């Protein structure tokens, strides 16, 4: 099958290629070995971007594609992190089995939360999911389960298999997370472009009409929550592997706000947008932290509010709205320049 690739697909392939050779490029530029110093640091930076990108994308499947506003997404992320941590540390499972268990647990959990919370809609849903996530946060902090969860301190030093250890085998971890992100993106795109995805979007645009056309809205919303929950849980599991720990903060409101922020900055209702948002947030957070020290979360919150007020469609959305006219403007200017020369 010799189909010509569209320009956006070329861009995607180029981006992946760029990310694959990125560690070596940095190593060349800095003259340091690829598994130490600056290149290692930037690999770590991008690993976090990849993990957050999957998390943000999973959030956008709910918010951008199905029109469900959840404030409890940290629940899935945190459960993934804790599940993999507990299974590796206390149950001594191997990594593959633990990740499989994460998927199964996330499936069951998102079905239960979905069935309970979807009895209400709109902001009620946001409120109810926030309550469930806060419950999980409180349980993670509870001293009763200290021998498993480590209470306030969280799970420390999760024994990650040596071949993928984020400290010693950073480069390998980098490629594994990159592969994970690409697979998740392709899966998410498959879901979103499938007939099921179309029904989700129909529900987002007009739920009554979708119902009248004969679609069982609850089923499709449940599918969206399940897909989104599993993706978020896997992202959380990778987060635990990367940090070698899981603390109650991954279940806190901050985690949900982070997902929201990345989704909104990147652009609601596209898969690339949230991933881009994850990159922006991670790098912005890093620079703000360097320049402003401990007061950066405050600046972060203010930036978030300004973006919600003034840039509601995010980077991708604004580009889609204005991109064509900007491009036309630039082309005109270029022509003028050429004519003058």
């Amino acid at each position: 099958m010799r189909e010509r690739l569209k320009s956006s697909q070329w861009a995607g392939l180029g981006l992946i290629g760029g990310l694959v050779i990125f560690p070596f490029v940095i190593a060349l530029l800095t003259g340091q070995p690829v598994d130490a110093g600056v290149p290692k640091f930037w690999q770590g930076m991008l690993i976090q971007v990849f993990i957050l990108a999957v998390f943000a994308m999973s959030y956008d499947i709910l918010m951008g594609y199905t029109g469900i506003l959840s404030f409890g997404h940290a629940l899935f992320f945190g459960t993934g992190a804790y599940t993999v941590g507990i299974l590796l540390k206390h149950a001594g499972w191997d990594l593959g089995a633990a990740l499989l268990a994460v998927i199964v647990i996330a499936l069951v959990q998102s079905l239960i939360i979905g069935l309970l919370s979807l009895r209400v809609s709109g902001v009620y849903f946001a409120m109810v999911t926030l309550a469930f996530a806060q419950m999980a946060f409180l349980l993670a902090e509870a001293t009763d389960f200290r021998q498993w969860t480590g209470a306030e301190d969280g799970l420390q030093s999760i024994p990650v298999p040596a071949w993928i250890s984020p400290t010693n085998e950073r480069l390998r971890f980098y490629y594994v997370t990159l592969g994970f992100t690409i697979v998740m993106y392709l899966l998410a795109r498959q879901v979103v472009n499938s007939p099921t995805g179309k029904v989700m979007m129909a529900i987002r645009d007009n739920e009554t009409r979708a119902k009248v056309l004969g679609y069982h809205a609850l089923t499709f919303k449940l599918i969206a929550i399940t897909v989104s929950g599993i993706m978020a849980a896997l992202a959380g599991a990778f987060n635990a592997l990367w940090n070698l720990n899981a603390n109650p903060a991954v279940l806190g409101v901050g985690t949900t706000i982070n997902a929201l922020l990345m989704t909104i900055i990147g652009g609601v209702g596209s898969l690339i947008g949230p991933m881009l948002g994850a990159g922006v947030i991670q790098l912005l957070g890093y620079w703000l932290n360097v320049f402003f020290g401990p007061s950066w979360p405050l600046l972060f919150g203010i930036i978030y509010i300004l973006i919600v007020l003034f840039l509601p469609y995010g980077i991708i959305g604004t580009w889609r709205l204005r991109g064509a006219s900007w491009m036309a403007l630039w082309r005109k200017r270029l022509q003028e320049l050429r004519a003058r020369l």
Partner: protein
Amino acid sequence: MIELIQRRRGLIAGIIAIILFGMWASTQYEPRVLASILLSGLTLGALYFLVTSGLSLIFGLMDVLNFAHGTLFMIGAYIGFTLYANPRLLLNTLPFGLALVAGWILARWLPANSLPSGHRRPLWVAAVLVGLFAIWNFELAPLATTALSSGGRVPTEQAQAPTPIFIARALGLAVAGVIAGAAFLAGREHTRRPERRDLIVPIILLALALLIAPLRLTLEEWLLSLDSNTRFLLALLIGAGGGAALGGLMEWSLIRPLYSRPIYQVLVTLGLVFVGTELVKGVWGPGGYFMELPAWFSQRGPNCPSPNLIAWLQDNCASIDVLGRPFPSYRIFIIALGILMFVGIAVLLRYTRLGMIIRAGVQDGEMVQALGINVRRVFTLVFALGAGLAALGGVAAAPFLGISPGLGQEFQLQAFIAVVIGGMGSFTGAAIGSLLVGLARAFGDQIVLTGIQLPWMSEAMTFSPSIARASTVLIMALVLLLRPAGLFGKKE
């Protein structure tokens, strides 16, 4: 009769559940233990009610779910506590606020209507720059933390700064206010021409700012020399007032531009949770504080605990005897405050013009607007009212629960659960939901103390307070399963 039962089935189901639970509880605990659990539950319920009533009113009227309500509660607690323990921070920032607002109002006298709207953005930038320049290097954190930790004995640099510098800063902010006001008015038509009597308010504000500036230290000493009861009442008033002002400002500046995009309103309020918490951490420090009880609720002596409420009026004991067990008198005060506010709001809703507009607005906001009532102004008022109630709750909770930046989130969670149980937008529902959650928490805390022993267990099972706190979510899940709209909510 049957119709009545059908209409009131939420209430009836609630009452039956309470009776059943009461029967179980009375077999489990002896009466005096039960009495103090009930009173603790009422205390918590009263505090939750102060949060949920505002939340519910705001949601009912303008369909905005304010996720920052718990944050307002926490900020109210901090403001009240600061006034009570050491008002240095408030006295040193108040003139700035007053000057800014005065400048903003004074901008109406500029020929701003002739400014084209294109000048708006540069003017905003100029206002922000001037404002930042005016408060450059004026740090709030030392004003709050050193003053509070030393009881005001240690002077702070900012408070000791010479008056001319302080006044120059205030005037700079007034100028920033004028520029911001001009930016706000630029290109705007249909503004009412100001009259001479409109000058009174900004002049008074500016005069107050200039008057407080040289008297900051004297005022601080005077406030600290007042007896603790007066300071406590002042703290309640100023805390609630500050919270109301913040709420009004929030509605006007952040919520109002977004009425056409409801989801984004919620997103903004969630962002405010983050900003508010970080701001409080930055100013007052990440640690917690403990607020001392005023003299009314803290006397100890041979007569204590007071045998009854009337005896307490004379001896002001820290606790009151309830069926042979001492119960803190301050918690009785919180219960009274809750009941007072419940009655007050009920009267406001039922017998005043504003209440009539609010009730009508809950039913059909567009119709109220069509009848020529300025709904936007009522929105701001109700938002301020709700925020003020939450902040009042925060001040009242401060001596009882302590103050920390995490206080808001905990209350937010329980308030949300109460609202889901009671039904959104229903005032009675908010009250009953708060009461139920409060009682559930009190019983949970008791079970934490004693453990739970079911017939087949050899020894009692114990668990930590976190689980008791988390367990109220289960009640919410139950209500959602049985009656998604809540006990008093309307069906969607």
